[in-house]
Each structure stands twice: as structure tokens, then as C-alpha cells.
């Protein structure tokens, strides 16, 4: 049970906030946006933080999920939950197809390829106006309903998104603490050694790419129904960068770090009016500053600091020996 202590505390806070402040705009509306972004950041963190890969086109999968739900429920009057599943299935197929050529690449090349993919999807959403509504977007998307209850208030949406958001965190924690999670981290640590331990690293990278894309698709479907309106600008390059920034700011290879990043980066524009005009500038600054000064992320950085302070109070702790990773020279 110790393993999930942090999760229970977080879940309790998420559940208590709307009970304490049911009519507070910040809690229900901004809170729901935060929880939605948590799904995206936690999903992308599996790919970037744990498996050590990079994707600058993640908003595309968010968009495909959103548009699947939007198009299928408005044009074909499909049940919203079914539409969500179709969206997930579609993203599963597309992500697998894209992964094949793209995941042969590494580093900058992978970044460029995913960037290109994101832009292509965005252009399709804009150009294929016959079904996507083009730049004007699609409106009148019906809301979700559960056991005959329409999810039609801010509070109910908060609850709905909170449920999926908590599930996403739990899934991420479970995966990391297992053989599958070690596989991801091994690919990050040393791909050659991972292969020598029997890990099919191409498959590992493909699977985690698809999984994180499906997290994004789920978030997209929820987003479409919550907003009742989708347009291509929500799924552009800028938003891809925003999700990456959440992962990097909070702390790569830390699920709670990703949660933290999503909270901070959703709250910032809501609280700072100046943010509006300088959004990309600030995100870029955070990304660069984070990489240079706190490569392990703000969340991990802060928790380590706190731990050091606490340890000092409870007496001196044994000093770890210095790492000597690079003594050996090749012959």
C-alpha cells in the first residue's frame, strides 16, 4: 500500500476540492482543464520521461481523438462512448503505422519527424472542411451521459474528467512498477544492454508510443464533449510544445512530476494575464531554463531538496560515493 500513498493523497485532494468549493470557477472549470492536461502529460511522460524518446506532435493524437468523437457523434449520431472507443481504435492504428518509420529515428530526427506528423494532421483538419468543418471547427457536439445522467454541469464534468485522470495516473504508476516499466527505463538507460537482456527495443518503443497516443486520444474525446466545440487551433504545434513543457518542467521519469507540470502550466495562463501575449516565449524559456538548471525537473528537484532538509534534521545520513562512470577508456 506504501507504493500508492502519494496517489491516495492526490486522489483525496482532487475529490475534496469540489466538495469544499462547489461553485468556484477556479476549482470546477480550471480544475477540469488541469485534470485533462494531467492525462496528456502523464501519457507523454511514459514516452519522453521514462523511455527517453521525444515527440513534438502529440497534440495530433489529442486532435484525432477529439475529432473522432466530434464527427461521429454529430454527423453519424453514434453513441458518444462508442465514438470514444472508435477514436481510441483509430489512434491505435495510426500510431502503430506512424511508429514503424518514425521510431527508427532517434534524438533530433525523431523530434523533427513527430513535429512533421503533428503539422500534417493539423493541415488535414484545416483543409478537409467537408467533414472537419475546416478552420471554423465543429460545434453542437452532444455531451456525454452516464447511466441516464447528462454530464451537463461544470461540477459533473470535473468529476468525469477527474475519474479518467486518476485512472491515467494509476495506470502509469502500475506500468512503471513492473516488468513493462523496467523495459522502458532500460531502453532509456542503454538500448544495447536492454537488447542483450532480451528486450525487443523496437517493439518497446512502438508500444509506449501507441499507449501515450491513446492517453491523448482519450483526453481529446473528453475535451470535445466537454467543450461541445472543436477547431484545429486547439491541436496545433503550440499545444504539442505545451505538453512537452509540462513533462519537462514537472520532471521527466516521474509520474507525479508530470502531474505537477500540468498543474503549474495550466494555472499560469489563468492567473497571469500577461501570459496571453507571451505564451510561447514563456514556454520556451521554461523549457530552456528547466533543461539547463534542473534537468531532473522542478518536482523532482523540489522533493529532493525537501528530503535533504528533513534528513539533516533527523541526523546525518551516509554520504553516497561519487559516481565513477567514465573511468574506463576503450582499447
Amino acid at each position: 500500500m506504501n507504493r500508492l500513498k502519494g496517489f491516495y493523497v492526490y486522489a483525496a485532494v482532487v475529490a475534496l476540492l469540489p466538495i469544499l468549493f462547489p461553485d468556484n470557477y477556479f476549482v470546477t472549470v480550471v480544475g477540469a482543464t488541469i485534470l485533462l492536461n494531467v492525462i496528456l502529460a502523464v501519457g507523454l511522460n511514459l514516452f519522453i520521461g521514462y523511455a527517453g524518446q521525444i515527440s513534438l506532435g502529440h497534440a495530433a493524437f489529442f486532435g484525432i481523438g477529439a475529432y473522432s468523437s466530434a464527427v461521429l457523434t454529430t454527423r453519424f449520431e453514434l453513441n458518444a462512448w462508442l465514438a470514444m472507443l472508435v477514436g481510441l481504435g483509430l489512434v491505435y492504428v495510426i500510431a502503430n503505422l506512424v511508429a514503424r518509420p518514425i521510431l527508427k529515428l532517434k534524438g533530433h530526427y525523431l523530434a523533427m519527424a513527430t513535429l512533421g506528423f503533428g503539422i500534417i494532421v493539423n493541415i488535414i483538419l484545416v483543409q478537409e472542411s467537408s467533414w472537419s468543418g475546416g478552420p471554423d471547427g465543429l460545434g453542437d457536439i452532444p455531451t456525454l451521459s452516464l447511466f441516464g445522467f447528462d454530464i451537463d454541469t461544470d461540477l459533473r464534468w470535473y468529476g468525469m474528467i477527474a475519474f479518467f485522470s486518476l485512472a491515467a495516473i494509476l495506470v502509469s504508476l502500475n506500468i512503471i512498477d513492473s516488468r513493462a516499466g523496467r523495459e522502458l527505463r532500460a531502453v532509456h538507460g542503454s538500448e544495447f544492454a536492454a537488447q542483450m537482456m532480451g528486450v525487443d527495443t523496437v517493439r518497446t518503443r512502438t508500444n509506449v508510443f501507441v499507449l501515450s497516443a491513446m492517453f491523448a486520444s482519450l483526453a481529446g474525446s473528453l475535451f470535445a464533449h466537454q467543450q461541445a466545440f472543436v477547431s484545429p487551433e486547439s491541436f496545433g504545434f503550440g499545444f504539442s510544445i505545451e505538453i512537452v513543457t509540462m513533462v519537462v518542467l514537472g520532471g521527466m521519469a516521474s509520474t507525479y512530476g508530470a502531474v505537477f507540470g500540468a498543474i503549474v502550466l495550466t494555472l499560469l495562463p489563468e492567473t497571469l494575464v500577461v501570459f496571453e501575449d507571451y505564451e510561447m516565449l514563456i514556454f520556451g524559456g521554461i523549457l530552456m531554463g528547466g533543461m539547463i538548471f534542473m534537468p531532473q525537473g522542478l518536482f523532482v528537484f523540489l522533493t529532493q531538496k525537501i528530503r535533504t532538509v528533513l534528513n539533516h534534521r533527523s541526523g546525518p545520513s551516509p554520504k553516497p560515493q561519487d559516481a565513477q562512470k567514465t573511468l574506463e577508456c576503450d582499447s
Partner: protein
Amino acid sequence: MTILQAVNLDKHFGGVAAVTDLSFSVTEGEIYSVIGPNGAGKTTLFNMLCGYYVPSGGSITFAGKDLAGMETHQIAAQGISRTFQNLQVFYNMTVLENVMVGCHMRTRTGLIKAALRLPSVIREERQVREWSLEALTLCGLEHLADREAGSLPYGELKRLEIARALASDPKFLAMDEPAAGLNDTETVEMRQLIQRLKERGITILLVEHNMGLVMQISDRVLVLGFGCLLAEGTPQEVQNNPAVIKAYLGEDV
């Protein structure tokens, strides 16, 4: 019984021949060492064995199976494991987690099962932990299990790589310079560890520059020079072989 057989193995990089027409076979259960001056093709041989390089010619057979066309992870699945000359430790994990990755092939949990954390996953985790601690104990690292791998000194990282390989329960372990950079005490410990591995029935292919170590523990030694076989035999035979003496010490002018 022969477990590994290389026949007419060739590897050239452009015009440079790293390994030329090399044939040898390793018997099950022995310690088979490969020695030779720097650049003789030892690491190239290792990299071909584990599928990192594709041989330009010839074949490698393991336990009767041709390894041609197999990817590294498929070769690992045959029961071959290795350690690395320039360490390939997972520095983003603890010591125990490093070794737990070694148990990869002995377990099954995939993403979906892991996400749902089915009871079988929890059982498997317990088993993996047990296997890993066993491997760590054999390598004398059990007291460091929860340390970050990056905080270990060099000699212990070398043993960590062996523990990780052991966790995969290999039939055949290729060790690339396990004693390089170790002091005398550590080298003695390493020798004892390699002997313990042999006693457990693991066939060992050893590349090493420390001649004292090689001559003490090897059953047979292969001497490489410029990618070609210079000599093969027991440590005594090899030490008295004129071609070997010439390669290492030069000859009278």
C-alpha cells in the same frame, strides 16, 4: 560437446579487415579465453556474436542453431548474455532494478497486464525480486541493492553487469575485459566470481588483457593477431607457442 562454433568468420569495415577467416569452437562448461593485442578483433568478435555487427562472411552456430540474421534480443533468447568493456549500466535505475531487467526473458508481463496490476503481476514481481537478489548475492552486491546504480564505484559496476547477465539465467556468458581497471584485490575477487560461474555450469567466453588471470582460469585460449587466429590451446601450449611470443614481444632483428 560443442556449444558455440564459429566457421570462417569474416568482418571488414570498408577496406579494413577486423576479423579474417576465423574458426573456433567452444565446449560446453569451459572457460574459453580470447587474447590478443589491442585491435586484434576481440571486441568485433563479441559484437558479431551478439548480433550488433553482421559478419561479412562465415557463420556462428550456438547449440546447433545458426545465429545469422538474428537480432540481439533473439540471440539473448538463445541463452547468450554478455558484459561490456565500456560499461552499459542502466544509470537511471537502482542496483536491484538493473538486475531485475536481467529477468526480462524469464517473465511475461506486458503493458496491459501491468496497467491493470493483475495478481499474476504481483506474484511475478516477487519472483523477479527473489531471482535478482540471488544474482546480487552471488556477485557480492546484495548490500547495495537499493543504491542508485550511478553511485557505485567502478569495480562494483563491473560486478553489477555480471549480476544482471546472471539474472537472465544464461547458458553462455561472454565477458569483455571484466578485470580491466580493477586493482589486485578486485581482480582476485573477479577470478573467484568467474570460477563460481563456471561451477554453476555456465560456459564462459572471456576477453581479457590481464594475462595472469587468463592463464590461471582458462581451459583453453585463443590468440588473435590482426583479426587472424595465431594459436589455440591450453594456457601452457599457448605460452610456449613461437607465433604468440612473436606477436606479443616481437622478434630478433
